[in-house]
C-alpha cells in the first residue's frame, strides 16, 4: 500500500526527471567539442588588480577568437581558478586542470611567484607554457617550451636597465656618477643588480648603492642621502608604493640629478600617473607599451577600446596600457601557433613558437632559445607636459615619449632632468 505522501514525492521526482531529460534532449548539440585553455590567475590577494585586468584582456581575446570560428573549428573555453596570490595553491590548480578538467592547453598565472610553482608540472607533461610577466623564471628551470611575453629580453636582469644607461652615455657632457637604490624585495633587487652591471660596463662610478625595507613610507631621508652624493644619474628599482614615495620625495628635496628613474614599477599605472601628475615630468622610466605613434601596432587600439569599456567599474587599471595588451598577446601567440600547425601537438607548437616571429597587438614577438624575447624591448619613456589631475591625457600620445630603443623612438630626451 503506497502512502499518499510517498506517492506525491515519487510524482515530483518523476516530473523533475522528465523535465531534465527534456532539457537535455532539446538542448542544441554543439558541432564540436570545446577547446579548453586552463590557467590559474590571481583574482584575490596582493596581485588581484593585475590578475583581474589580465583576465579581462584574456576574455576579450576569447570573444575575438570565437567570432572567427574558434581554434581548429572548436569554440574556446577557459577553465581557470583563483590562486589568491598564494604560490601553494598553484600546484593543486594545475594538476586539477590537467588531470581532472583535462584542458587542451595551459598558460600561466601572473607574476613570478605564481608561475614558478607550475613549472615542474608542465615540464613533466612537456606542455607549451606561455607565461605572463615573470622575471627570469626560466633561468632556473631551463625549459625549452617556456615562452615569456614580457619583453624583458634574453638577459632579463640586465636588459631591464640597459636603455637607461645607454641613454645616459649619449649625453654631452657625459655623466660620471650614478646612485642605485632599490626596495629590498625580489624584482627590485634583480633590477638593481642588473643596473649595477650596466653602470660598471658603461664606466659610471657608483656613488650610492643601498636598499630600503619594503615597508618604508618616508623617502625624504633616502633622497637626501642620495642628493648628498651629488650623483649625475639616479636609478630606482621599486614597487608602486615606493615609486610614488620616491617621486614625491625627489620633488620635495629638489633632486638635482641629470637623469632620474629607471625601474620604478607603478609609474605605468593610470591611477598613479593621475595622482603624481606634473611631478612625473622628465622622469625617464621603463614601460612596455605607450600610446605613441611608433607603437601603433595592428589591433592594439581596437583592443584597448574594448578593454577600457570592459574595465569600467571593475577596480582595475582604467586605461590598461601596461599588462592587458600583453595578456591578449600571449594568447595570440598560442592562437597563431595552433592555427599554423593545425594541431595541439605540444612538440609541434613549441617548435613553431621558437622559430616564428608573431604579429600581435604588442608588435612583432620573437622568442629566443631560453623562452625570453630574442631582443629586449624594454622601453625607456620620458614623461612630458603632464598636466595635473587628468587621467585622460595619458590615453593618447605626447605624454610618455619613447626614447629607447631607437627603433621605437618617438622624440628626443629632455636632459638634464632638473630643468
Amino acid at each position, binding site marked *: 500500500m503506497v502512502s499518499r505522501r510517498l506517492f506525491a514525492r515519487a510524482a515530483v521526482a518523476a516530473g523533475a526527471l522528465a523535465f531534465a531529460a527534456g532539457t537535455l534532449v532539446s538542448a542544441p548539440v554543439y558541432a564540436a567539442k570545446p577547446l579548453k585553455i586552463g590557467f590559474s590567475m590571481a583574482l584575490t590577494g596582493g596581485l588581484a588588480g593585475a590578475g583581474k585586468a589580465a583576465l579581462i584582456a584574456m576574455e576579450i581575446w576569447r570573444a575575438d577568437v570565437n567570432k572567427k570560428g574558434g581554434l581548429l573549428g572548436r569554440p574556446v573555453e577557459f577553465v581557470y581558478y583563483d590562486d589568491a596570490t598564494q*604560490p601553494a595553491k598553484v600546484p593543486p590548480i594545475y594538476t586539477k586542470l590537467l*588531470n581532472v578538467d583535462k584542458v587542451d592547453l595551459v598558460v600561466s598565472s601572473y607574476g613570478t*611567484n605564481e608561475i614558478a610553482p607550475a613549472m615542474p608540472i608542465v615540464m613533466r607533461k612537456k606542455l607549451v607554457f606561455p607565461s605572463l610577466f615573470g622575471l627570469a623564471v626560466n633561468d632556473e628551470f631551463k625549459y625549452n617550451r617556456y615562452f615569456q611575453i614580457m619583453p624583458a629580453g634574453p638577459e632579463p636582469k640586465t636588459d631591464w636597465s640597459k636603455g637607461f644607461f645607454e641613454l645616459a652615455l649619449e649625453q654631452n657632457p657625459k655623466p660620471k656618477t650614478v646612485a642605485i637604490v632599490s626596495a629590498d624585495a625580489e624584482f627590485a633587487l634583480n633590477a638593481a643588480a642588473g643596473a649595477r652591471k650596466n653602470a660598471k660596463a658603461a664606466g659610471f662610478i657608483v656613488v650610492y648603492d643601498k636598499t630600503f625595507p619594503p615597508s618604508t613610507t618616508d623617502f625624504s631621508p633616502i633622497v637626501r642621502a642620495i642628493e648628498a652624493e651629488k650623483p649625475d644619474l639616479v636609478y630606482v628599482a621599486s614597487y608602486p608604493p615606493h615609486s610614488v614615495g620616491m617621486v614625491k620625495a625627489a620633488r620635495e628635496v629638489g633632486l638635482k640629478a641629470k637623469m632620474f628613474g629607471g625601474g620604478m614599477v607603478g609609474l605605468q599605472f593610470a591611477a598613479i600617473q593621475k595622482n603624481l601628475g606634473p611631478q612625473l615630468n622628465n622622469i625617464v622610466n621603463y614601460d612596455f607599451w605607450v600610446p605613441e605613434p611608433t607603437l601603433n601596432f595592428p589591433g592594439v587600439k581596437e583592443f584597448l577600446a574594448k578593454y577600457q569599456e570592459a574595465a569600467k567599474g571593475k577596480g582595475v587599471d582604467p586605461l590598461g596600457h601596461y599588462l592587458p595588451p600583453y595578456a591578449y598577446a600571449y594568447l595570440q601567440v598560442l592562437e597563431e601557433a595552433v592555427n599554423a600547425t593545425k594541431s595541439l601537438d605540444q612538440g609541434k607548437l613549441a617548435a613553431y613558437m621558437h622559430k616564428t616571429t608573431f604579429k600581435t597587438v604588442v608588435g612583432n614577438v620573437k622568442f629566443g632559445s631560453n623562452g625570453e624575447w630574442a631582443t629586449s624591448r624594454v622601453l625607456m619613456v620620458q614623461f612630458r607636459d603632464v598636466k595635473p589631475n587628468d587621467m585622460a591625457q595619458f590615453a593618447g600620445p605626447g605624454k610618455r615619449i619613447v626614447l629607447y630603443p631607437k627603433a621605437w623612438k618617438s622624440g628626443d630626451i629632455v636632459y638634464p632632468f632638473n630643468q
Partner: protein
Amino acid sequence: MFRNRGDVVFWIVLGAVLLAGFGVTQTIANEYYYTAIYAILQATIMAVAWNILGGFTGYVNFGSAAFFAIGAYTAVALDKWLGLPMPFLIAASAAVCGLMGLGVGYLTLRLKGVYFAIATLAMAIVLETLINNWDYVGAAKGVYILTPEKVPFFSSYIQLLFMVMLALTLGSIAISRYLNASRIGRGLAAIRDDEVAAECAGVPTLRLKLISTTLMGAMMGVAGAPYPFFVTFVDPISAFNLFVAVNSIAMPMIGGTAHWIGPVIGALLVGGAQEVITVTVSSELNVLIVGIMLVLFITLAPQGIVGLVQKWMKRRKR
C-alpha cells in the same frame, strides 16, 4: 602505547590509513588528488602543532606559523649546502624549530595572555626580517627548488611527497593523542585552566610550558620541511603568509581545542572546504570561508565541533 583497547583501535586505524595511502599511490595516478590532499595534510600537522601550545596549554600564539617558514628555509638551506635526502631535512627542521620553540618560549612565557600573543607576533616579524636578509636562501628574491623527474616506488614525485606528508601527519596526531592522555597532558590542562593553582598543585609550569613550545615548534618545522619541494619556489612573503598562520589557529578552534582530535577534524573540514572551493566556486568566497566559520564557531560553539559532539552525546544518555 597499548595501554587499553582504545589504543589498539587507534593504532590499527593509523596503520590502515597509511597502508591505504600507499595503496592509492600504486593505483591512482591522477596527480590532482595528491596535491590537494598534501595541502590538507600540511594544514593538519600545523593545526595539531598549534593546538599543543594554544589548546592544551592555553597559550594562544600568533607567531607559530613562523616556525613553519623556518622549517621550510632550514630544508632549503641544507638541501643547497649538503643535498641531504628528505628524512634528514625533516629531522633537521624539527631540531632547529624545536630549539627555536624552546628559546622563544623561554623569552616570552613569562608574559601572560595578550602580551604573550603579541610577543609571538613580534617574533614572527623578526624572523621574517632575518630571512629577508639571508642571501644564501635567496633573501627577498626567493629561491627555486628543482625536484627530481623520477622517483623510486612511485610514478611521480608528488606521490612521494604525499606519502611523506601522510606519515608525518599520522605521526604528529599520534604524538598529540599520547600527550593529551598523559600525565604531562593533564599538567598542561591544569596550566590552561589556572596556572597559579597548577603551580601550587605541584605542576612545574615553566618546564611544561617550554616542553609545549618546543614540541609545537618542532612539529611546525616538520610541516614546513617538505613545503619547498611542493611549491618549488619559496620567498619570505609566501612562506610567512598570514593566511597560513590564521588557518593554523582557526582549524583547532573550529574543531575543538581541548581534545587531540579537534584540530584534525578542523583541518579536514576547513582545509577540505578550502581545497574544494578553490577549484569550484573560485571567488572571494574562498577567502571568506575561514573567517565566517571562525566567527560562527567562536560565538555559537566555543568548544568546537568536539564540544558539540560531547554535548549531543550527553543529551542522548539522558
